[in-house]
């Protein structure tokens, strides 16, 4: 008797679980590890009010985000990079900005991790191409007079992403726009052909970059600002970067906002634009829109409307753009003109 009861209960449980699974619309978000921490905050809050949508998040790298959104595996491909013209011609996708992000240059130089070294595009290009090999190189000393004597004769280990990455995209774009020799050499992309440097290390994802830089004395790495709490905890320093006006600025709400404002009027209706090396004395040079790469033609109507509802919520001042989410990951909300353009793009999802 008891056995029958248990079996019946188990069967009922199964039915109710599968019933729920059938009723809920599944949405898969995958890609950028820079956007991943924010997505987790968003999804947790959104699910509480919308039990009928099941959103799964994955931090796999922007390259994966773009390719899985194209292949249809994921409904939202998170990317720090907008898609290239040639890619768009092959597979037209929506590139929808969700927030404004930045990237910091972290380093592990014993004795200097609690101050902010100055670094410039040409010096970073020199480091990543192997011409600047030690932390006490004259070119680094020149822009760090204050710490000149404290810079150690320590080998620099340039750390880059080994997976396809939007962070590689925005970092290499900064080098391209600030340093002619880099523009004529490796250029920019989600994966680039790094110059031959025997000490250079490849790491996977932003978490891998933090860990490798923490383990490596003399290491330098480019890491998304949403990992600032982790890089602080790891005891890494971060640099003030030289902007287009020749000023060294730290990534703060003020400097990131200044850079975003200087380019928001120029953002086209498809919103594919680089915000790197923006003009203005206050502008931080490595900022970007965080994109949701979305196929305008979804496989079914239920998915399309659930997707639109979530993306629209993420752009609301009272929703995804509120400070309680963005502050935690050091992102900035989109200016209202960009929100309008993003919403117009979301309307195209079918």
């Amino acid at each position, binding site marked *: 008797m008891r056995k029958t009861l248990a079996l019946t209960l188990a069967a009922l449980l199964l039915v109710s679980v599968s019933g729920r699974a059938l009723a809920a619309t599944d949405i898969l978000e995958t890609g950028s590890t820079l956007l991943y921490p924010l997505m987790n905050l968003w999804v947790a809050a959104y699910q509480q009010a919308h039990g009928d949508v099941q959103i799964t998040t994955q931090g796999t790298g922007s390259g994966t985000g773009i390719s899985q959104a194209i292949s249809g595996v994921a409904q939202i491909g998170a990317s720090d990079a907008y898609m290239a013209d040639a890619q768009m011609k092959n597979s037209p996708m929506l590139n929808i900005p969700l927030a404004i992000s930045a990237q910091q240059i972290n380093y592990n130089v014993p004795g200097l991790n609690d101050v902010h070294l100055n670094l410039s595009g040409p010096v970073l290009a020199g480091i990543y191409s192997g011409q600047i090999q030690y932390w006490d190189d004259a070119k680094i000393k020149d822009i760090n007079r204050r710490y000149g004597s404290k810079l150690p004769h320590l080998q620099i280990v340039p750390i880059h992403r080994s997976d396809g990455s939007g962070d590689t995209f925005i970092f290499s774009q900064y080098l391209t726009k600030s340093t002619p020799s880099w523009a004529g050499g490796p250029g920019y992309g989600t994966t680039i*052909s790094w110059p031959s440097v025997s000490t250079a290390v490849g790491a996977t994802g932003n978490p891998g970059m933090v860990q490798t830089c923490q383990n490596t004395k003399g290491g330098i790495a480019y890491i998304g600002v949403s990992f600032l709490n982790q890089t602080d905890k790891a005891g890494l320093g971060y640099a003030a970067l030289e902007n287009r006006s020749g000023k060294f600025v730290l990534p703060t709400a003020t400097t990131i906002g200044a850079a975003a404002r200087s380019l928001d009027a120029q953002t086209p209706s498809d919103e594919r634009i680089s915000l790197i090396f923006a003009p203005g004395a206050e502008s931080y040079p490595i900022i970007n829109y965080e994109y949701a790469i979305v196929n305008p033609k979804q496989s079914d109507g239920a998915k399309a409307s659930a997707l639109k509802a979530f993306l629209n919520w993420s752009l609301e001042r009272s929703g995804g753009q509120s400070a309680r989410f963005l502050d935690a990951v050091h992102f900035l909300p989109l200016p209202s003109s960009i929100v309008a353009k993003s919403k117009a793009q979301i309307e195209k999802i079918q």
Partner: protein
Amino acid sequence: MAAINLSVRGAAKAASPATLQRTGSQAVLRTLTGLAALASFAIIFLMLFFLIAYAYPAIRFNGIAFFTSPIWNIGNQYGSATVSRAGFTAEAGAAFGALVFIFGSALTALLTMVVAVPLSLMVALSLVYRIPRMIRPLANALVELMAGVPSVVYGLWGMVVLVPWIGGALAPWVTTHLGFIPFLGGSAGSGNGLAASVFILSLMVIPIMVATTRDVILAQSNSLFEASMALGSTSWQAMVRAVLPSVRKGIVASVLLAFGRALGETMAVLMVCGAAINSFPQNVFSPVNTIAAVIVSQLESALTDASGMAQRSLAELACVLFIITLLVNVIARGIMRGADRREGGHA
């Protein structure tokens, strides 16, 4: 099918119902196993055929530079310019030279064998002859457990424990105190690199080699060991001069099995190798990269290459790995046949 029916009918004339049943089922079994054997050939050749067909544009585009150039560049994805060679097009600046990855695969796998073969033989011999009977089952169970651990677990352990240790303690000490020895001096690096890859790969292949070597030694009757001891040799001499030569074939087979595993291992290596690109290792702590690891780490960006050439070049890399593995197998069979002939009827 017709053949089966015929043979069944032919058997039916002469045989009793019981024999008929047996012969019938035997014929069915023979056909099924025959088909399965054929299928395994067909699958391998079809895979290779489709891989090569898919990689063909890359094979033409890259030419011999694929094997001689260390520069891997998927080209400027965000430009509008393209480059054409041999009638096939890629993004401007694209160059697919796989020398770094081919060299890295060979180097990590060979060094792994150098570390793992002697260790595995010693462990296998001691499991059979040395370890007290009481704890032998436990030791055997441990070896089998290690052989069954998924590679990503080794990789994760390597990433969070081994790499920080190499980068923080081992490499600085070795490069400072033993730096005068070739390939041990120079930059200590981050811990990700050749040493970590070889360490992790050794951990992964040693249990496999120990298990297979132990089994072939156990399959050999104990009389050889005892006879050798009776003739006055030490147990070391008995093991090395009498037992090991008698199981040479089995050892070669297990070494090649392990070599294949080391060549093809992907995730664990990717997690600790430092993903070198365009550069060769300078010392044992330098970052390296292997064919398998680079296919995984480059795949997603390659999939977004509008010209498709990056994907096809990765397929060409996969062909190379496939062919190397096939060659290793063929060579293994050659060695074993050679050993057969030398050892004559004895083996």
